[in-house]
């Protein structure tokens, strides 16, 4: 299958490890055959800080990203290094709305296992790519998948995320192809 038209912009937001957005873009292109580019960084999302929770509101970051979406970009994935939340959850690894234009991924929790244990940079990047691909799936209207071997399966913790392969099941893959064809 050839490279599909349309660009996914991977946007570093605030201070983020340089490799992270590059790895995300590379995985999008290789797995999904879609063009992906690392866009110019956005400022640190101070506006999204919840001082009571000391976490950053993912919904506010998404709203800000939507305003900055470049004309040629079909979808955008933001990469931040701060702890994200949505009102009902204590934290999220990433956030996207079904069929939305923007998603955001946080490396903050992906860099931490049990307290005191360090995580290798390679594992952090792999985790980031998985979360980013999962959230990108939501942008193309893929819901959660019941197959634990699929990237669209909901992974609520790091163990689960690490067990998930970098792979979409055949049903989600077929759904992807159909969605990409529509776009």
């Amino acid at each position: 299958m050839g490279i599909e038209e349309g660009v996914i912009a991977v946007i570093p937001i605030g201070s983020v490890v340089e490799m992270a957005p590059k790895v995300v873009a590379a995985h999008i292109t290789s797995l999904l055959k879609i063009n992906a580019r690392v866009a110019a960084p956005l400022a640190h999302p101070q506006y999204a800080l919840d001082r009571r929770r000391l976490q950053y509101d993912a919904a506010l970051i998404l709203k800000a990203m939507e305003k900055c979406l470049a004309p040629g970009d079909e979808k955008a994935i933001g990469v931040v290094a701060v702890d994200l939340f949505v009102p009902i959850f204590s934290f999220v690894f990433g956030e996207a709305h079904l069929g939305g234009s923007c998603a955001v991924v946080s490396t903050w929790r992906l860099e931490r296992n049990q307290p005191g244990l360090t995580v290798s940079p390679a594992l952090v990047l792999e985790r980031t790519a998985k979360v980013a691909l999962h959230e990108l799936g939501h942008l193309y209207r893929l819901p959660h998948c019941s197959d634990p071997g699929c990237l669209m399966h909901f992974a609520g913790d790091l163990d689960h995320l690490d067990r998930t392969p970098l792979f979409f099941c055949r049903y989600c893959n077929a759904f992807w192809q159909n969605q990409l064809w529509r776009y």
Partner: protein
Amino acid sequence: MNNSMQIMIVDDEMIVRESLYHWLAKEGHSVATAASGPEALERLKEIPFDLLFIDIKMPGMNGLELLEQVKKAYPETIVIIITAYGSIESAVQAMKTGASEYLLKPFKPEYLSLVMEKVEQQCRLESEFRYVKGRLEKMTRFENIIGQATCMEAIFDMIPEIAQSDASILLTGETGTGKELVAKAIHAKSRRADCPFIALNCGALPDPLLEGELFGHQKGAFTGAVQNRKGYLEIVSGGTLFLDEVGEISPKMQVDLLRVLEAKTFTRIGSSQGVAADFRLITATHKDLTQAIALGDFREDFFYRINVIHLKIPPLRSRKEDIALLVEHFLAKFSQETAKKVDHVSDDALAILCAYNWPGNVRELQNAIERAVVLCKGRSLGRCDFAFLQAHADSMSSPRSLRKMEKHHIEKMLAECRWNVSRAAQAMQINRSTLYKKMRRHGISRNH
């Protein structure tokens, strides 16, 4: 993909409704939101929700009050309480009132995932239970017949009595009144209940076929008889034979059957060997057999043989108090069959159903409910879902002869035009003088 559910989020905070909405949508569910208890109750009237997320702290009606009302009106709906201000007291009260879970927000994402898995399993189990219960109720003997009217109570009282003997029974009643159901109930209560119940519609088969079906044939008895074949008189051995529309069978067949009933033996077509006949005969007809006897269409001796016990099944219009019960029964049946949660009939609709004459009796009512459920878009059937009954009643009551139809139409148009003959003639696209002539011919005048 998980099984999709209809979910409603009830929370006065928009950001909570939105974030839960987005997550549940990603899970593949159909999600609605409501900002208050009253709004949630209004939405519940329109759509059957499988699951509700209810916040406790809301202005006006709080979450626990809403929970109580939901559980009272829609007990099968699963409710999960979510709150940022948890207390043991409210948790206990919520669970006692019927909540399935009590979640303190914010919660860990995987916790909600586990809760949803549990809820989906609960929904699946409840659905399976309803299905199995429905099947069991179908199989339960005698309770297939629904009715509380006095005339039906009399039939229910008679059935166990007449079931005990082997006397032939004649069931009479209009088409669609449930004669076969009554026959099955009699069989189920009899000592022959463990043996076959065979029903045959005599009106549906021409005589030669009916003979072959009942008596069977030997190999070579006629062209096409390539092997021996048992007839129903043999297959039913020990059980009950139900002959529906017995008024349709030919005099020759009546003689043959009479011989079987008297001698208790029969022979297959093409055979000379007698076979013992051991069955209980129940017959049914919508015809007036005494009139058929008078006309020479039905044998009197056969009539007396099949009419040892006579049971008349009343038409539905004679037991209108049973319509509500029947509607409830058919609504549950077709909701299950169509997997649509239609569980309520409005008072207006019920009034239409009770006013209608039901020429097709219970069968027609069943069809009407099935049609309404299949075409219904919400959870409740209203008068518009039965508008076709009104149209049918109008067409049944309108005159059949051309002359009467013309008179009926002229009277209708004059009434619509308030007896302005010129306007009526214009509407009917005829001359005023022509209309006057027709009015004279039919004897139509304003004072009539």
